[in-house]
């Protein structure tokens, strides 16, 4: 078991290293000189040279690369050119809506998908099964921005249950801010539940035909216990995997939804940073999102360990 964990940690470090290198290269491959772009067409060549020096852009690429790695190792993501603040602070200020949106969406997605997937598998071929499959297909095909607009129209503007958009005033309490997050979370939850429904249905179908499920029935336990305690636990590995991947995708994939609902999250931050060519912020957000990806994958691997005693390599 210790070997399994050590291997995963090592893998995590290697992946993170590759990610950082890729981020560094991609950002530098983008056309245009950030210093002259930032200063605008009227800037003197001397100003541009000065800014390039301040940003370290006059150094050889290799030097830039190692100072980039060194900074990140010490938790320093650089200084935002546009905000003139440390990138870590810029990100921290925008993290809350994204984190809340992601968490709520995944909770809603799982809350919809798991019962539907299990029941679909259990009543395979029934009206419910066919209905849930086609609904899931529909949910997966609907663009989240469209669903977002529809929900805004009917549930926010129409029924008035939720605010239409935004994240409240800076003085809003936590619960007021959460209120802003619920509608976009439902949108993302529904859209992302489709894949999880398909996966949990397939995984449960597999397991429900297994011999040990028949053994469980032969022991004289309730169907509920057979399905939840014996079958579902076995089906959890593929389900946990797809939930984890959905979770990771949501962190970066919330961008469109953040736009529709005008949430000041990481998505809108990175879009703005790209338009302004604010390299350190782009880099910083990419590093943070990639880091979360890697971390989530690591947590999935650890969950395997907790679920299945046969996992140990």
């Amino acid at each position: 078991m210790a070997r399994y964990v050590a291997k995963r940690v090592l893998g995590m470090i290697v992946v993170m290293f590759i990610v950082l290198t890729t981020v560094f290269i991609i950002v530098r491959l983008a056309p245009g000189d950030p210093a002259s772009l930032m200063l605008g067409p009227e800037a003197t060549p001397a100003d541009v040279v000065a800014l390039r020096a301040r940003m370290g852009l006059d150094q050889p690429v290799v030097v830039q690369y190692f100072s980039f790695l060194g900074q990140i190792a010490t938790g320093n993501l650089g200084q935002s050119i546009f905000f003139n603040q440390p990138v870590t602070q810029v990100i921290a200020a925008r993290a809350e809506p994204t984190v809340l949106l992601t968490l709520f969406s995944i909770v809603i997605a799982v809350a919809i998908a798991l019962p539907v997937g299990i029941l679909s598998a259990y009543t395979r071929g029934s009206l419910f099964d066919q209905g849930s499959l086609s609904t899931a297909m529909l949910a997966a095909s609907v663009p989240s921005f469209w669903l977002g607009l529809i929900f805004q129209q009917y549930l926010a503007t129409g029924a008035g249950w939720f605010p239409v958009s935004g994240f409240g005033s800076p003085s809003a309490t936590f619960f007021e801010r959460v209120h802003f997050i619920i509608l976009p979370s439902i949108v993302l939850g529904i859209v992302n539940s489709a894949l999880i429904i398909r996966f949990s249905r397939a995984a449960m179908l597999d397991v429900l035909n297994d011999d040990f499920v028949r053994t469980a029935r032969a022991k004289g336990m309730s169907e509920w216990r057979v399905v939840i305690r014996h079958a579902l636990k076995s089906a959890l590995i593929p389900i946990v995997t797809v939930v984890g991947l959905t979770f990771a995708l949501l962190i970066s994939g919330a961008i469109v939804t953040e736009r529709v609902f005008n949430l000041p999250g990481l998505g809108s931050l990175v879009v703005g940073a790209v338009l302004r060519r604010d390299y350190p912020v782009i880099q910083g957000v990419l590093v943070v999102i990639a880091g979360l990806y890697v971390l989530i994958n690591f947590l999935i691997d650890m969950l395997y360990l907790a679920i299945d005693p046969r996992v140990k390599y």
Partner: protein
Amino acid sequence: MSRSDEATTDRISANGQGLAPDEVLAVERLSTHFVYKNRTAKVIRDVSFRLKKGRTLAIVGESGSGKSVTSLSIMGLLSEPGRVVDGRILYRLSSGEAVDLTGASKRTMRRIRGREISMIFQEPMSSLNPLQTVGDQIAEMIWLHMATNRANARKRAVDLLRLVEIPGAERRIDDYPHHMSGGMRQRVMIAMALACDPSLLIADEPTTALDVTIQAQILDLMRRLQGELDMSILFITHDMGVVAEIADDVAVMYAGVAVEQAPVRRLFDAPNHPYTRGLLASIPEANRERDDKGQRVRLTAIPGTVPSLYDLPPGCPFETRCAWREEACLEPVSLEPCGPDHLSRCWKMRQA
């Protein structure tokens, strides 16, 4: 709900009439069909047998003969769209009452499964839950049916592992199934099945997936435990050798019907039905490897294949493969006596 309440709802005594005092199980004219949208597989037709306390009845037949479906019908574990369409399954509860399992409520069946009637399966590799320790799986059976606490259930689980002769039971109890060999796992299955002292053990090909040496050990174990625990065994197999080892009585099934029923000695000494004769002749014998001229003896096989359960011949189901067949075999034939405690479903052999 208390036990007696349930007994009243299921009208146990009213439906269970017809079971002799020394009988644990009586299957009467059982028919189980799998009904699909546009066709019906008549998997079991008109099967009857009786099982006395402490005895072993072997149901023998090739795959598709309906022997496993018979056991699943008794357990109420038929998968969709399987349904008992006719007949009764009378069972004597440990309380002494007799109940017809075909009419029992889901609740009653849950109480009977594991507690009264236990089952072990063919595949010890896949029949245990891979994510639970064997101890937990045995203990689960105990606390499902008995008022006990965790510690006692665990202690009983260790005792059961000792009972099925697993060395180092105290240590092995925390093992997962994948730590164990096939034979060990089948011992665990047996331990689990015996956890609540059932009166009837249904063993569905329990030794088929095992090596021959392990097979013999498991059969020995089952025989010993049957004697110690005074339980009846319904043993399902396709292996005539295993039948000879373990059975008191035998029912031979073919294409969903019982073609012959007899005490084991009688069946081996004087098989009546052509199918039984074919089965017995197909057992390879070591000392018959060469004939009088020194030629290698070919293995005897029954020619042809089992008829489709969707499209059964109107008369004797074995008629399509039988060497003795006549015009009259196209007429339906019933199971009738051909000797002491001996029934056969062949009119021709009965006369011979």
